[in-house]
């Protein structure tokens, strides 16, 4: 099945956007210090967690350059879902279906988001979920998926706590709750706020990323590849 899809994908040439993206990351140099890379920390708001059925209704992102959050370089967009009957959304996200009708559909928002991201590295909290939705959108629209290197702050937090702080005893099931963004922010004493949209969630995640990246630097995690290999002991299943 997968092979078949790939084949079709190969037959249907991926869109230029995807080809260029893939070419850029083909021989991507991961040996430089983290501060040399640009990151986009992003978050999506979804109608639910199932990538087949549910849809993106908002994307927020902030850029990190030189390991600093740039508040002047942010992205925030609501997205009109294809199916507007998700009544859940009105409760969870405080957006009424009426309001959602006024905003552009994903076909319009995605290109803007991709141009915002460019060839920056992507960062998210439990990023696999968000990337799943983004890639299913790029597959539809551009016939391919993004190759940008991704970093998961949840994984980074696990590495930081277990490998660096030596807290191996915390296994992921019993301590599951303590790895959500809110608990980590409080545990690490980060500036904390009641995020009320995707942009502010992305900002909260960015604080966490900065914290972890700079804390880990002190323990010898200096380059991007250091960061990737630091997680080798743990199962990195980002995509």
């Amino acid at each position, binding site marked *: 099945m997968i092979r078949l899809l790939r084949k079709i994908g190969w037959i249907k040439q991926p869109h230029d956007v995807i080809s260029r993206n893939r070419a850029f990351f083909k021989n991507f140099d991961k040996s430089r210090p983290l501060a040399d890379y640009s990151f986009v920390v992003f978050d999506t708001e979804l109608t639910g967690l199932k990538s087949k059925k549910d849809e993106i209704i908002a994307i927020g992102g902030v850029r990190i350059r030189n390991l*600093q959050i740039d508040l002047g370089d942010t992205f925030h967009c609501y997205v009109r879902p294809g199916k507007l009957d998700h009544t859940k959304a009105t409760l969870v996200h405080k*957006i009424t279906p009426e309001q959602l009708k006024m*905003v552009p559909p994903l076909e319009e928002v995605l290109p803007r988001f991709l141009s915002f991201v460019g060839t920056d590295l992507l960062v998210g909290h439990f990023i696999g979920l968000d990337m799943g939705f983004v890639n299913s959108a790029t597959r539809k629209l551009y016939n391919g998926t993004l190759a940008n290197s991704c970093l998961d702050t949840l994984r980074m937090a696990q590495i930081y706590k277990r490998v660096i702080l030596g807290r191996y005893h915390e296994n992921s099931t019993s301590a599951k709750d303590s790895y959500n963004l809110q608990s980590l922010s409080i545990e690490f004493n980060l500036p904390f706020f009641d995020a009320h949209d995707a942009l502010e969630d992305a900002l909260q995640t960015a604080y966490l990323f900065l914290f972890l990246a700079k804390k880990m630097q002190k323990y010898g995690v200096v380059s991007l590849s250091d960061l990737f290999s630091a997680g080798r002991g743990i199962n990195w299943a980002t995509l």
Partner: protein
Amino acid sequence: MVDSPRNRIGPPVPSAAGSVHAVAPDVAVTFLRQTMPFKDLADDQLYDLARHCRIDFFPKGTRLFTFNESEVTHLYLIQRGGVRAFITDEKGQTVLKDYRGVGANVGALGIIRGTKANLNIETVEDTFCYLIPREVFLDLVQNNSVVAHYFLKSFSDNIVATAYSELRKNKLARRSADDLYLFNATAGDMTKPLFSVSASASIREAAAIMSRQAIGSLLVYADEDPGAMIGIITDTDLRSKVIAEGRDTREAVTAIMSSPLKTVGSQTLCFDVLLKMMTTGIHHLGVERGSRVIGVITSHDIMVQQGNSPYYLFKEIGGQKDFQGLYTLAEKVSGIVRNIINEGAKAGNISRMIGLINEKMLSRILDLLHQEMGPAPLRYCWLLLGSEGRREQTFKTDQDNALVYEDPKDDSQRLLAESYFNAFARQATKHLLHCGYPACEDETMASNPKWCQPLTAWKEKFSYWINGAGQEEQLKAAIFFDFRHGYGTEQLAVDLRDFIIKQCRFNDQIARNFGRDCINRKVPLSFFKNVIIEQNGEHHERLDIKNRGLKPFVDFARALSLKHGIRKTDTLRRMKRLLVKKVVAKELYESMVDAFELQMQLRVIHQLSQIEDGIPPDDFIYPEELTDLEKRMLKDAFSVIEKMQDVLKKQFPVV
């Protein structure tokens, strides 16, 4: 990396749900809004500022700046965590300078002065900072008076005035705003009628109009549009740019005008107009209604509105015929303090004013006493000691006084004088008590026969303090060295002062003792999370502003005055003499004066608000009662003490 210009997302899509906003997150704006001095910026300015910010994280122990090495490219605003500021002295010792926590900033001075970092800065906790780029920050300082006030403030600056007015606003204005013209009258209320002249008029024509209308300034309008004021000329311009430079008065008036005309809206409070004048140094402002200039307002116009109630009280005291009337009038004194604080008086002015009123009260009491007891057998002088001697009294504190009389010629005169003056002084202190000046606990009062003596006995006492007494005794006698004439024959006080100066010239032991005592005093350093931190790291929950804050200034001035033969007793005047004698440099002098006055002010306001709440006044200030600005000013004041200690160390080296 791909190039990502700012705001590439473009303007917000106009939709009810606000679907796109390429602006900084609201939480960023919220943070700035909570942070001095940005909280006063308008919303759009805050959003704009937020867009230019970057957020950085510095783990505990990170060095942010290195003294004299780091270029300051950003202002650092602390969002979470804290830093310590320190320098390393020539011996390699670390000297702690400051702790700064959430909401405080780092780097402002370097940016404004265009110098490298003036302190070492290191994080003491995991710290998140907002970084405001240098240019953005400078732009704010230049274009926003509130921000400018906050950062440009050095103690010799006008900003102190803002700080004082903040103190008044925060602590006292609520009840009294009604009778305060500064906070009620607007620029429009005080505007002088408009006189203007065409830009093509000559200087002489303009001067003729000013002279004919008896006005000090004249607006200049554009030829093509008589409604558009393009500049202003003032008397000063005529003097400095025409007469002094020998300029031809047939030249166009535009050659000497100040342009463009600085304006304020007609609805601007006089208070804010004054602030603008103080910050810009421009004393003639155009007043605008809509976009039309309707007239001119000057600092003089505002100043002449000052009230005159202290003067009224002063005259009334002089007219009282009996003691009871004086007791009643004495109750009005704290009301006077409130009034003149509200009118913008600094603590220095307040205590001088109160000093005058107290002296008037004293002289009236003694006048009435002489009417009762007959004239004194010998000439005498009533001496004021301690804070009264220094003219630093505000609220009625303990009586500290003494009496010196002419040396009696023989035993019978001696006995007569003793009995007269002892009785006289007892009566006097009793009446003072009824006027609300409490008795001194250790009876440093003229009613105590020990302190009611002929001149020779006083000289012996001072000679003993200067030449014979031990350290402890000398320190205890300090308030006597602040004596001044309060009533009676001033010459006696002058003779006594001459004697002391001569003695101290031969023996500076007591000056040295006072000076070393001041050097050894612990100095408060900073506020951090609502405690006061001292140089040695000790913490205190409250600040004893009298002993920790003000006393070092008083002691400093007294010690050096004794060493340098200065007769003055007021701390501020002593400082002035020390400047004239080049014992202290101008810069230090100015910061000492401001630091001292500021703390006096803070104390007066603290005590006044206690009195009004029915609490007996004290000298304890809790950090949580202070605004950010007040804390900051106090911190600056503390830092001056250190510099004074350095001067004392040079003046009184350890032998």
